[in-house]
């Protein structure tokens, strides 16, 4: 069963929301920084403008400072309506000419230092506590020349920070409003986009639910290229399923037939035996019944073992299997049974191979092939089992050969002997016709190929070629 871990939609929404939040938080943070800087710069300019206007109106008249401050300097300051303002004008000896007499420490040294470096006075901004509030000051110097005397005058203008804080807050608030609006609009759009993109999946789901369980024809739905492989897989899977179902149906019918026929035979033979008066003939008939019963038992066993194997394919994961070891063990198990039929089993090969696979299934495969070889061997024959390495198309493969000395299989039958219940018309040995097909299934399950060859002078060679697997290891 497929496990539903998390929904794509939920994941997408979560991710999109996270990304949006991160972006918006960054945007807000930058807006906040920008707002503070913008407010600071614009109000600094007002401060500077006011100081400049004051400086403009300071002149020398008969070696006396003549100060007539313009109202515009104060009007400039008044643009920040809720801030206190302080100012002071000092001469070169730092005596207050007009304005506030107790302004906090003024960076005169810095002011003079900079004026020397840059050969003119540049404004210096600084913040200080005054009258219980933080005040931002600008200090400006002005050099007045008269005849041969040089007089410096300093203008200091300060203002509290309410207006800039308010401006920064206002810009921040605007940014917040904008970002919030942007966030919700983007989220809505993205939700729509997610819904729209996931729509084809919904369509596939709809198409599958609406089908009857018997209908396995390919789904016809228009889907985006990313989802097309999924649809293809589904269709492939359904085709496989269809195929399997057909094969299963055929197998069931054939199996029923295979079981019903010997049962009917048994029935009539038993009937005959009941009616037979001749003791000798009856013995023969009973012997026949026993043989038929054995064949039937064999067939049923094979069918059950196949069912077990099919179940294993689905439930058992592969694990490392020492292939050579399994082969030797199987040969050993079959040796007594072979000897009863006067056939010898000979294991050739001295390599050690470990592959990934299902040991039980592999054993079933080997049993079936070797049993088959023994079954078709003449009395006194030898079944050779050889495990070897072969270079094939610059790839090293593991090859298992089982060689018998029986009559062999005609070429026209070679491609059919792996089919269920297939029996060559001139086959005389007893058998269910399932063994080899099981073997072939196991081989396919392990990505191995089957190959049939004629043995010399007579007989059949069954070749199982394990292609190179990951994790395959062998030693000579």
């Amino acid at each position, binding site marked *: 069963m497929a496990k539903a871990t998390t929904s794509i939609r939920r994941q997408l929404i979560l991710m999109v929301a996270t990304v949006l939040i991160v972006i918006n938080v960054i945007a807000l943070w930058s807006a906040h920084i920008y707002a503070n800087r913008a407010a600071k710069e614009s109000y600094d300019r007002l401060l500077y403008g006011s100081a400049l206007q004051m400086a403009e109106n300071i002149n020398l008249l008969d070696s006396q400072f003549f100060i007539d401050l313009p109202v515009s*300097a104060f009007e400039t300051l008044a643009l920040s*309506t809720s801030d206190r303002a302080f100012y002071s004008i000092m001469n070169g000896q730092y005596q207050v000419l007009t304005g506030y007499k107790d302004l906090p420490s003024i960076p005169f040294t810095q002011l003079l230092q900079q004026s020397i470096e840059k050969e003119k006075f540049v404004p210096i901004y600084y913040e200080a506590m005054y009258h219980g509030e933080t005040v931002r000051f600008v200090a400006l110097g002005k050099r007045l020349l008269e005849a041969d005397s040089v007089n410096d005058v300093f203008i200091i203008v300060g203002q509290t920070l309410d207006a800039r804080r308010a401006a920064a807050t206002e810009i921040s608030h605007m940014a917040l409003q904008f970002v919030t609006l942007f966030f919700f609009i983007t989220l809505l759009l993205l939700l729509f986009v997610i819904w729209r993109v996931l729509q084809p999946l919904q369509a596939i789901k709809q198409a599958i639910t609406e089908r009857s369980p018997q209908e396995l024809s390919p789904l016809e739905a228009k889907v985006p290229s990313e989802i097309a492989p999924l649809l293809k897989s589904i269709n492939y899977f359904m085709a496989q399923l269809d195929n399997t179902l057909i094969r299963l149906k055929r197998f069931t019918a054939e199996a029923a037939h295979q079981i019903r026929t010997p049962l009917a035979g048994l029935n009539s033979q038993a009937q005959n035996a009941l009616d037979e008066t001749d003791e000798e003939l009856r013995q023969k008939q009973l012997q026949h019944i026993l043989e038929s019963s054995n064949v039937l038992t064999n067939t049923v066993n094979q069918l059950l073992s196949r069912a077990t194997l099919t179940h294993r394919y689905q439930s058992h994961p592969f694990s490392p299997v020492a292939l050579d070891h399994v082969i030797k063990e199987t040969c050993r198990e079959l040796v007594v049974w072979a000897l009863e039929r006067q056939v010898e089993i000979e294991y050739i090969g001295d390599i050690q191979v470990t592959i990934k696979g299902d040991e039980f299934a592999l054993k079933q495969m080997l049993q079936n092939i070797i049993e088959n070889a023994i079954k078709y061997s003449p009395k006194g024959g030898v079944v050779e089992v050889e495990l070897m390495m072969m270079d094939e198309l610059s790839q090293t493969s593991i090859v298992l050969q089982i060689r018998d000395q029986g009559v062999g299989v005609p070429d026209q039958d070679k491609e059919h002997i792996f089919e269920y219940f297939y029996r060559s018309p001139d086959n005389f040995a007893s058998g269910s016709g399932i063994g080899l097909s099981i073997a072939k299934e196991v081989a396919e399950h392990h990505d191995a190929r089957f190959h049939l060859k004629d043995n010399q002078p007579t007989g059949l060679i069954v070749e199982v070629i394990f292609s190179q697997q990951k994790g395959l290891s062998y030693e000579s």
Partner: protein
Amino acid sequence: MKVSCLLGLCFILLSQMVFADSGQQSSYVAFPSLDKKLNQQEAVLIVHGAINHQAISPLFRAYQERYPNIAIHYTESNTRHLYEQFISQPNTRPDVMLSPAMDLQFKLANDGYALAYDSPELVNVPKDSHWRNELFGFTYEPIVTAINADILAGAALPQSREQLLNLIRSKNHLLDDKIGLFDIQQSGFGYLAWAYDGQQSRSYGRLLEAFGTHQARLYTETSLMLNALLKGQIFVAYNLVGAYSYQWSQAYSWIKTIMPTDYTTIIMRTAFIPRDAKQATLAKRFIDLLLSPEGQHILANQSGVTPISTKVKGPYSRDELSKLPHGIFRPIPLGLELLLQTDDAKKRLIYHEWDSAMLYAPNDSTP
């Protein structure tokens, strides 16, 4: 009600106590609480103001009707004295300061002497009538010129400063020693009005010259100037507080009050609560009343000064004021511009101009 009527009588008897304070004219009026209980410590709201106590007492009465167990002590003095006392005597600071000298009031607020109070009544008054929740403008008063109409001998009243100059020129020696002005070095209000003229008017220099050459007399208070006008000591009084002048015009028909038509300066009386007020809560209640529709209504109907609110009705409301002939109303902005008026260098310049012009002016600040 009976009790309050009785006590009201009591208040009239007690209220007329006038005494001199450190050489300057100050008057002190006590308004005892309306229902003082025996042995109970009386809460006192101390108010210092440059507003005629007759004009402000209706407000005090309304305050005491709201809070009957509070007494009010009101000291009235001129604007400059009020300011200097505030700075130099921290121990005698009031709970409420009222003054029309906007620049001095503003300077005190700017320098952090005022207590911030976010009054819920601020919604009733225009936005630019208060500053930082510290300084509250509560009146809207024109600065006017008063003229003795008799001297015109039937000629038209001068309506603008230009016409006033023409009048002075045409009457020439008749007006020698007969023009009354505020002594801008003594009166904060006078300085504010004069300095503002300097910013606004092209006729400022010529006016100063005309006043100087006619040996204008200098006064420290509107009432003194109006008295002089009544007695015939002066014929023209320039830059008076409108409310008082109009009252005198109503009482004496030959005293005409003019709002100059070139521009009419408007000042606001402002109130603030000093930061170290002992009765800050009582003071806040007083500010609330002052700005409330009720307080503004009292101003418009009983005190004779024009309230700041545009919504109240009454004989002294802004509506009524704007029906009188006037120039463009130019309210002195309540903001940092006022700092210029307090600037020492500026003040020295203006004083210097003034002194040079008024070299021969007789000083009538003490009658």
